[in-house]
């Protein structure tokens, strides 16, 4: 069974084609095109314009790379939410148009769940706690009572957004995460940045204010980056460990764009080792926002009898992780 997935929740328009291979996800193609603002952060309308411009190109490339003809696709999946309205609408429009013209079933996918399912489909984990860290989202998700439930999340901004905001303040380009990671390697001094964990939730705005003050007072940018990573990632690792202890699961999965950060990976891996748990992370191009994860989740949903009628395929900016009835899992 083959599926085309179209992703467009924020800065990325992506198209991926995957095959259902005995319960495993075989990625045939995964084309990603990211909107890069000239300055500042993501402007939703400009990002949507970018997606409209490149949607057909990435979809065509996805078919070419996968060596699959459009008629051979069994299901078309799209990111229904959560995300930025204009971006979601653009991707959804492309999916609806293809569904109608090819006469193929449509499935609306929850973006956060797709980050978890692609990990289950492409790594050896079965029932993990997912630490999902990206620009807009920071959640600790696990399966419980038929749904993916959020056990911990950020109380203010996503960790990626936090890194980008700090980066912008220090005149670094967008996305700032990878640059901060590089600068952090030459940092040595741990600055007193407030550590904020509340139960299984985290907060970043206090860290941001404190780091900005250090920057204003002339602290070295390397030490700021180093301290911010050490404190913020330790907090994320701690809430993930708390959630694992709370729900009693011994697998941890990373997902989202920030999951590419090697220091964060190292911390979560050490945490897993120390508690005798297993650590998993999909390849980089499946960590970031991508079409393959949407395609894969779409296949799982479709196989369990789920389908989204065109007239019910509204996008949902606030699509919650725990709203989806996870029929494809026992």
């Amino acid at each position, binding site marked *: 069974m083959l599926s085309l997935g179209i992703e467009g929740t924020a800065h990325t328009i992506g198209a991926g084609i995957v095959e259902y291979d005995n319960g495993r996800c075989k990625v045939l193609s995964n084309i990603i095109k990211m909107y890069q603002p000239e300055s500042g952060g993501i402007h939703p309308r400009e990002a949507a314009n970018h997606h409209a411009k490149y949607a057909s190109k990435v979809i065509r490339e996805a078919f070419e790379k996968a060596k699959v003809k459009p008629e051979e696709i069994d299901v078309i999946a799209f990111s229904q*939410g*959560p995300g930025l309205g204009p971006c979601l609408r653009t991707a959804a429009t492309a999916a609806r148009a293809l569904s109608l013209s090819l006469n193929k079933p449509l499935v609306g996918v929850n973006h956060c769940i797709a980050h978890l399912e692609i990990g289950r489909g492409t790594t050896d984990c079965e029932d993990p706690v997912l630490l999902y860290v990206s620009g807009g*989202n920071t*959640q600790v998700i696990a399966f*419980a*009572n038929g*749904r993916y*439930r*959020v*056990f911990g*999340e*950020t*109380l*203010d901004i996503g960790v990626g957004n936090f890194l980008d905001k700090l980066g912008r303040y220090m005149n670094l380009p967008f996305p700032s995460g990878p640059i901060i990671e590089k600068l952090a390697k030459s940092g040595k001094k*741990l600055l007193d940045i407030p*550590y904020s*964990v*509340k*139960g299984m*939730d985290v907060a970043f705005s206090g860290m941001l204010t404190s780091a900005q003050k250090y920057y204003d007072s002339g602290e070295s940018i390397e030490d700021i980056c180093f301290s911010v990573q*050490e*404190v913020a990632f*330790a907090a994320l*690792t*701690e809430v993930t*460990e*708390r959630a*694992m*202890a*709370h729900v009693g699961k011994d697998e941890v999965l990373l997902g989202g764009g920030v999951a590419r950060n090697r220091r964060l990976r*190292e*911390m*979560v891996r*050490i*945490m897993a080792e*120390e*508690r005798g748990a297993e650590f998993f992370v999909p390849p980089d191009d499946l960590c970031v926002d991508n079409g393959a994860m949407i395609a894969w989740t779409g296949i799982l949903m479709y196989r369990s009898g789920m389908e989204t009628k065109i007239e019910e395929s509204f996008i949902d*900016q*606030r*699509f*919650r992780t725990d709203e989806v009835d996870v029929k494809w899992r026992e």
Partner: protein
Amino acid sequence: MERVIYRGAEAELILSEYLGRKAVKKVRLSKKYRLKELDFLLRASRTKEEAKLIHEARKAGVPAPIIYDVDITRCTITMEYIEGKKVKDLLSEVSKGEMKRICMEMGRNIAKLHNRGIIHGDLTTSNMVFSDGKIYFIDFGLGSFSEEIEDMGVDLHLLMEAFASTHSEHEDMFGYVLDGYREECHVDFTKIRRKLDEISRRGRYIRWR
């Protein structure tokens, strides 16, 4: 004769003895994933703060273990052993009526803590032990002192989330927690209620009504 009875995310509980009494040693474990300096700073300050909070909770009339000894350098608190059952497990076994009674009592106790400016910081049903007909509050490890409505709201919101995730089939029971809270709390309950709603809306992707 010491043995580990529980290994949590951040600490180990060791069954021990203190001057002939059954005791629990709570040892905050060093985490290799975080920087050494940050690790000790967090463990030491949490140990100190927790001991203070437990002591204050008892003064507020809320069931909590008696503190026997505090050792900051080893990040260890030795305290009374509470024989009983976790409220998390208890709730899935008892009748609806009993559940309601437990939830009300839970709410009253939380209000008593808040009345004295004690914020538990990690209100989940795993951190409550039912013993001798009373609900003991344990693990004040993420607690703090505050008189702010905001902090009380966040405290209660955590428990609300715990009910939504861990006790999803009894999510409505949280209403009884609030009923109990209302009975006992000194501040204007409508302010707490409003705060709780406000905090819920702060969570990401909440439906606005």
